[in-house]
Every structure is written in C-alpha cells, then in structure tokens.
C-alpha cells in the first residue's frame, strides 16, 4: 500500500466486510427482548419532584424571612437611559478552567454526552486519574481528567452540581443538621434525614417511605451521613457516623431486613472482640458490589485486620480487593437553568471569577434567587420582573453607579441597591445570609462589576411602591 487512496479503498472493504458479517437488528426482536419500564412511573416521579420543589420553595421562603421582595411591573422601560448596553455571547463561554475556590469549573477535556443532555442525576466514579460520569443504571456518559476539577481534592465527601453552560460545582455531600440529603437510583430515593439524621429512609416513586434504620444501630450515638442505592435497588450502602465520628459503612437491605456492617456485624452489642471495623463508603460497582475502604489505623474505633479498599458482595459478604484502582463514587446532579435570569447570573458569576452563594433554584418560576461572595461577604441577589419594589425600604434614593441609574435604600437595617437591566429588576442586598451584611459601598462595587456581565441595557431606576 503506497498511497492514501489505497488506504481509503481498503477501509471501504473493511466496512463492507463488517456490514456483511452482522445482520441488522430487527426492531421487532428488540420489542420482544425486554418489556418497557412502567411508563406510569413518570407521573409518580413528577409528583415526587413537584412535592420536593414545593418543600424547597417553602424552605427558601422561610429562609428569606418571608419578605415579599418580588417585583411587579408598573410600566415597562420604554426608554433606555443607561449607557451600558452589551451583547451576550452567542454561546455561553465561561473560562475553560474556572477560578480557584468553590466556584464552577468547566473541565476543558470533558468528553461525552453534552451536559444539557445528561439525565437529572447520576454518579461519578473517580478511578485513577479520571472522573467518569455515569447515569444511575451505570451507563458511562462522559469523563474528564480529575486534575481539571481540583476542588474535588478539597472536599472530603463531595457531590457535584453540573450546570450546563456554566460548569461543575463541588459541594459537600455530608448531611447537615436539619438537612435531608437525597440520592436517587431510577426513581427510588435514599434520604438521610430526620432529627439529627437518625433516619435513613427509602423514598419510593409511589410516595411510600421505607424506614431503613430500625435496628440496634439507632441506639448508638451518631447519624447517617449519606447513602447510595445499589444498581439493582436492593441495597443501600449507608455511611453511619458514630460517636467520636467513628464511621461504619452499613449494608442496608431495602426490603426492611436487618442491616449489617460492611464487615458483616449485625450488632454493636458484642463485649468481646472482634468488633466492627471502621469503614468508609465509596460506592457501588456497576455489577452491584459495594466498595468500602477499611482504613489501616483509624483515628477512633477498631481497624480491620486486612485494611484496604474492597468490593463486597452484599449477599455473601465476599471481598475482592480493588486497591489497584482507587475508587470513589460521587453523586452528581444536573442543574438546568430554569430561566434566562438564572443563566445570566450564573454566567456573570463565572465570568467575574466569583464564588456563588445564597442561591435557590427557580423551581419553575421566572426569577432568580442567588448571590455572590464579594471580598468575603455574601451578597444576595434577586432578579425578577421589572416594576416597583414592594419591600418597605427606607432612606430611598435615586443615585448612580458608574453613571448608571440605581435605586438605593435600607431594608430592615440592611443596605439595598436595585437597578433595571433589560427585562429584569435586580435587587442586591437587603438580607443577611451569613456574617456581616454587605454595606452600600460593597453593593455599588458588585453592581459595577455585575452590570457589564449581565449583557443588558440599564433602564430607569426602580421605583418603590407606596
């Protein structure tokens, strides 16, 4: 073979040979092979999702103190009085690598299903040098080098939030007091919640709940940190954190049967050794084995005679070392921008290299509730329809930031700055999220930085109702 056309001709013969060797698959044979998954489940899932959204919305409302800071249109901005009119990029173009810290990062070498097309949830496997995104059935959807998401190394038990067009945010998966972390697998949800996280529950798509933590472990001091459902849905691999933060990986059958530790103990009541060993949940292999690490010298608790990371058959307890490929399973969720305002604020946050904060998803609404960390201070930011401010502001003034019209005021002792940009009224400050509230100078600085990255035209300053 001496020229490319010979190579092309040879490859065409290869293609023809492959076509001849394989009979096309008849759709009818596929229909016979596997029955469709129950379609009605989708409706149940929608109901669950709607219920969760409602709960989250209520939580968000409570967190905001119940203020009605929504804005209603009194009159549209008929004339443009601002001087900043910028055009959004035709495609969202955040930096290929994001800022350090906890802000979103876009792995430059990601290869796989576009983020917009990812399912809502899945699990990421960290093996060796790569992070692989899988759906909850174990299908590998994409991967990228682990060093392109350096934040993973700084969070002990991480979870990933994937924002199409923005990046991946690493957050802690550990259940906080009063929180309720849910991981899902094909419609079922595992929740570690209840007072002091004393409850590990399986939430089924039909809305029923199975309490999985009804045995002796409840008598111990501690809490559930998180739980992963096995690929076949028959087991939960739960992380129990006992006194002195002694962790135990627990294998919990979802039929309500007795749970046991990853090393096979069904009780903590033994007074003679051997005792259950400290163990860390890592996740599930695609073939349904629990991956658990038994540390060599745990800070508290008992070490395993044979420390290491193992894949454990939940039925038999048989262990297979997996130390050749360090393994870590991380839940992820795709967070779609529900509206243009969410996208605008997220994009601006990334472009400015700021850390996002204070946010709640829109839950189907048209506004955005978010914020940024500005010089260590959390600055809440709301975006909604253009119109007068309904909140009872005092010290209201029409002023300027960088020559652009804004409205300033005070809400319950906290500085507020609002401006109209395009079809959105942005409202900065007015609530204390964490630490000291942002002052008027900080709000002006945030507005000054934010406006060019919102890609809009600044309009008349918002009025205050009443």
């Amino acid at each position: 073979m001496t020229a490319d056309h010979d190579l092309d001709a040879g490859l065409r013969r290869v293609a023809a040979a492959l076509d001849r060797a394989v009979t096309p698959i008849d759709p009818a044979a596929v229909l016979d092979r596997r029955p469709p998954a129950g379609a009605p489940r989708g409706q149940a899932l929608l109901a669950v999702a709607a219920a969760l959204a409602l709960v989250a919305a209520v939580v968000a409302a409570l967190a905001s103190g119940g203020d009605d800071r929504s804005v209603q249109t009194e009159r549209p901005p008929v004339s443009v009085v601002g001087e900043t009119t910028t055009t959004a990029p035709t495609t969202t173009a955040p930096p290929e690598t994001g800022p350090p810290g906890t802000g979103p990062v876009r792995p430059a070498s990601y290869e796989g299903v576009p983020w917009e097309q990812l399912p809502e949830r899945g699990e990421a496997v960290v093996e060796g040098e790569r992070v692989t995104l899988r759906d909850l059935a174990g299908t590998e959807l994409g991967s990228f080098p682990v060093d392109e998401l350096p934040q993973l190394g700084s969070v002990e038990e991480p979870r990933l939030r994937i924002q199409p067009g923005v990046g991946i945010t690493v957050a802690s998966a550990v259940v906080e007091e009063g929180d309720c972390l849910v991981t899902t697998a094909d419609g079922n949800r595992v929740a570690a919640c209840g007072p002091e996280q004393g409850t590990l529950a399986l939430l089924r798509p039909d809305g029923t709940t199975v309490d999985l933590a009804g045995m002796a472990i409840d008598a111990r001091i501690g809490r559930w940190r998180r739980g992963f459902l096995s690929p076949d849905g028959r087991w939960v691999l739960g992380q129990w954190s006992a006194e002195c933060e002694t962790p135990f990986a627990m294998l919990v059958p979802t039929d309500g049967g007795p749970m046991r530790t990853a090393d096979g103990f069904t009780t903590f009541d033994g007074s003679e050794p051997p005792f259950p060993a400290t163990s860390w949940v890592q996740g599930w292999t695609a073939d349904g084995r629990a991956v658990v690490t038994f540390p060599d010298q745990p800070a508290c608790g008992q070490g395993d005679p044979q420390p290491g990371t193992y894949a454990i058959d939940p039925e038999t307890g048989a262990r297979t070392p997996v130390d050749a490929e360090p393994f870590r399973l991380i839940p992820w969720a795709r967070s779609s921008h529900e509206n243009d305002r969410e996208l605008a604020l997220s994009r601006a946050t990334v472009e400015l290299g700021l850390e996002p904060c204070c946010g709640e998803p829109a839950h189907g609404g048209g506004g955005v509730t978010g914020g940024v960390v500005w010089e260590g201070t959390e600055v809440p930011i709301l975006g909604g329809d253009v119109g007068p401010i309904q909140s009872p502001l005092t010290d209201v003034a029409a002023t300027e930031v960088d020559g652009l019209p804004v409205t300033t005021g005070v809400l319950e002792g906290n500085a507020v700055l609002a401006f109209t940009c395009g079809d959105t009224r942005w409202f900065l400050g007015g609530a204390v999220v964490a630490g000291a509230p942002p002052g008027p100078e900080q709000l002006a600085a945030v507005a000054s930085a934010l406006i060019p990255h919102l890609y809009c035209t600044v309009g008349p300053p918002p009025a205050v109702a009443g």
Partner: protein
Amino acid sequence: MSVVVTDRQARFTAFCTETEPRLRRALVAAYGAELGADATADALAWAWEHFERVERMANAPGYLWRVGQTSVRRAGRQGRWALPAPGDGDGDRLPVEPALAAGLAALSPRQRTAVVLVHGYGYPLAEAAAAMGCRVGTLRNHLDRGLTALRTRLGVTDDDR
C-alpha cells in the same frame, strides 16, 4: 389473532430504523462483529425500555453508543478486535489486506471507530461524531491519530501532501 401495534411501538420501530445502522456500525467497528452486534442489541433494548426519555434526547444515538460501550465492559468480554472471516459469498470480492486488519486491530476502539465510520462508510464528520457521542473536534483527534498510526504501520504516503 390480530397483532396490536401501539403508537409507542410504531415510534420505536421508526427510531430503530433510523438509528440502528449507525449505532451498529460504530459498535462493530469498536468491538468487532460479535461483541458489537450484542452491544447494539443491548443498547436498543435499553432504548426500548427507556423510550420516553430517549425520544427527548437531542442525540439519542450518541447516548446509545455509550450504553453499548457500558454493555461491553459489563460483560467483561472485550478482547482483541478482529475482522470477521470471509463468508461463503465473499469469494469473488477483493480481500482486505491483512496488514490493514492488523493495523485497525492495533488502534484504540475510538480511533478505529472514527476511521471506519468516516473513511470506511463515508459518514460526514458531524454524523460520525454524533454516532460516537462526541464533538467534531474530538472525533477529528481520534481520526487523525488513527490514520497516522495506520499510515505509519502500512507505509502509506498521503496523496494530498
């Protein structure tokens, strides 16, 4: 006995007719005739099971390509790629040069798939990239590397250079 074809079945049949050839060719190029065919069947079965979701996907073939890949890995059967032996009706056809078959076998599955889809079947880059669930730029990388390896192995000169 009458056979009732539901709307879902009809839509799936149409989907299969359109999707199956590219999916099968990609998976067979990657994993060989037997494994590739099995993976295609698995992926289409998965698609039937989750068809409501599959119908809404922007690039269902790309997703199914990954389902097929996972099926191969789970089966643990991935071995050395080989061109199928000539069949009974192949006697009068030009044979594939053994060195080319060996060269293809030495490529990574993705390089081999890119080369076979684009240069063997003549798919446009965008179509081949969609079949492999990747961007055109990524496909081009696999293609360039695969072709370079093949040319080196076979001592091929590039006509266009």
